């Protein structure tokens, strides 16, 4: 491959965003941040890379395989930000340790991981999310879910589902039936991939009582509204811990008060493989996209690892996936047509003054970079896709519509 050609390539898993799409993405991020802000979340920004040790405990499995790691000048290992929750936990435990609780923080930016799993083929992903730290109530869980529903609606989606589960339900069910932790991990792995064929094979191969096997295999069917909680209760043997189901019931009631339960489906077989979740977990899906649009959950034990003991809950939107869906469905705002402004010899001053005034009033104005004739100006304007031409010449301004080829109406202004 020749030298120039080599320079024109981007590495696997990253991409350029071209005009229009890049702008739409920024608009979408602004829309999301604006909603976060109206719910009282304050934006924080954290470095693109940090010491590897910040991620050691919670992302051990990922560290080897999926994270970008490299040494700094003294040989300490750095990690390109793979997640926002851990950096925000660090911020909450240091700079904001004395702030009133609960703490509402939000963020937006890139995370980096080697491709695979839940993200598709991209290695740089844009996330926007929130963390609510210092509250352990069903109301705080529901606030996060309702906020996710608002973001997806505001983006223009109506046919999305937020599926809601609780990590404790499956854990308790497996423990109550005496499933070993090793077998339990395998079972949860198949639940997280929703590979119900392998799940069935595994469960049938384990030395389980028939009612235990039946209970585990019935969990994938526990999807729907509040009635699912009653069915779930029947699967648990007497004496099993019902707390997860009661929590979900409470959350469900608050979601009804928020008026968003129509977007929420209980899914008691939902497992998110990040191991720091301790309570409710949820993911948002829409038709035609094989990856979650958003996801999150409660992580009450995580902040202890940073030296502050606070319950917390949060979620993140996958901005790229959301953008893909909106783009495919043509739900992104059309770009505003621009004005092309040109001038003949001697009219530059008037033209530039007019351009500045129009820009101040909110118009999108592209100004010619040289003197031109009226015909040249019209040609240049059309090439740019501008809808109107303002041509300044001899103390006058002629306005021409450029939308139809050739026959624009001419109007002489003052």
């Amino acid at each position: 491959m020749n030298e120039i050609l080599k320079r024109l390539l981007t590495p696997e898993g990253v991409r350029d965003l071209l005009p229009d799409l890049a702008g739409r993405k920024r608009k979408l991020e602004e829309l999301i941040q604006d909603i976060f802000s109206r719910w009282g979340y304050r934006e924080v920004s954290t470095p693109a890379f940090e010491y590897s040790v910040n991620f050691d405990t919670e992302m051990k499995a990922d560290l080897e395989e999926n994270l970008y790691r490299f040494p700094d000048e003294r040989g300490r290992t750095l990690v390109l930000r793979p997640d926002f929750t851990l950096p925000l936990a660090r911020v909450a435990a240091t700079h904001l340790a004395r702030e009133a609780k609960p703490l509402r923080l939000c963020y937006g930016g890139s995370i980096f991981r080697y491709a695979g799993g839940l993200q598709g083929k991209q290695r740089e992903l844009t996330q926007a999310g929130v963390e609510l730290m210092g509250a352990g109530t069903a109301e705080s869980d529901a606030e996060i879910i309702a906020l996710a529903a608002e973001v997806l609606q505001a983006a223009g989606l109506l046919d999305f589902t937020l599926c809601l589960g609780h990590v404790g339900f499956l854990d308790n069910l497996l423990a109550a039936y005496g499933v070993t932790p090793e077998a339990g991990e395998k079972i949860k792995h198949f639940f997280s991939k929703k590979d119900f064929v392998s799940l069935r094979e595994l469960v049938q191969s384990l030395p389980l009582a028939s009612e235990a096997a039946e209970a585990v295999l019935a969990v994938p069917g526990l999807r729907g509204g509040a009635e699912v909680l009653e069915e779930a209760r029947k699967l648990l043997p007497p004496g099993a811990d019902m707390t997860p189901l009661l929590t979900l019931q409470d959350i469900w009631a608050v979601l009804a008060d928020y008026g968003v339960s129509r977007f929420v489906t209980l899914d008691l077989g939902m497992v998110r493989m990040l191991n720091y979740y301790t309570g409710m977990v949820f993911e948002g899906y829409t038709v035609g996209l094989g990856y979650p649009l958003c996801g999150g959950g409660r992580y009450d034990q995580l902040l202890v690892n940073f030296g502050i003991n606070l319950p917390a809950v949060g979620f993140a939107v996958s901005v790229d996936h959301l953008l893909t869906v909106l783009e495919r469905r043509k739900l992104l705002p059309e770009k505003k047509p621009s004005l092309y402004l040109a001038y003949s010899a001697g009219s530059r001053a008037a033209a530039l003054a007019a351009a500045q005034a129009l820009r101040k009033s909110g118009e999108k104005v592209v100004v010619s970079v040289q003197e031109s004739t009226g015909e040249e100006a019209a040609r240049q304007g059309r090439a740019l896709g501008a809808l109107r031409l303002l041509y300044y010449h001899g103390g006058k301004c002629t306005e021409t519509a450029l939308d139809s080829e050739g026959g624009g109406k001419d109007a002489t202004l003052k």
Partner: protein
Amino acid sequence: MLLSNDWLTIALAKGRILEPALELFAAAGFDTSRIREESRKLIFTLEEEKLRFVLAKPTDIPTYVEYGAADLGVVGKDVLLEVEKELYELLDLQIGPCRLSVACRAGSKGFAGGYVATKYPRITERYFQGQGKQFEVIKLHGSVELAPLLQLADVIVDLVSTGKTLAENNLVETEVIAHITTRLVANPGSYQVKGKRVMELAERLRAVLERKEG
């Protein structure tokens, strides 16, 4: 572009598993007679069931489902293992049971390293990588049995059902990599947003399978 959300689109793999798959859907009460009659058409709709069947090449089925062009797919586990997409695997339809196996010429000493011919390069790669052997994968698109006979490869990795084709070509099965049947897979988005319809359909098929077993 997309049908409304109460419609389901199912992609069926053409080829050896199509007929038994249609029989299964028929036994579950879906009228599949037109698909059998009009063999050149690729899309069939069942208005009253709000169901649409599309027929595609087996290796393309996971792609249709991944992008949500189809909500569900009916395809062999061999294809799923090879393409490694994030699809939900809802049901083992128990159609076309066979094995994905390593085979070599009768009388040779098994595989200690060398060339492997297969239609499944990724599965093969993963399988032998785990064994610490030196090997090179040769991708073929059909009649893989030829490769050892022409000394193109030392062994092959291919589907084996009765073993007849192997025997006719003087090959023997040495290792089973995976047991293969046809699966019902779902797009994760469809599985969540059209949850009720997907579950109903899976239950109707499961009921037929359990009747067969019972």
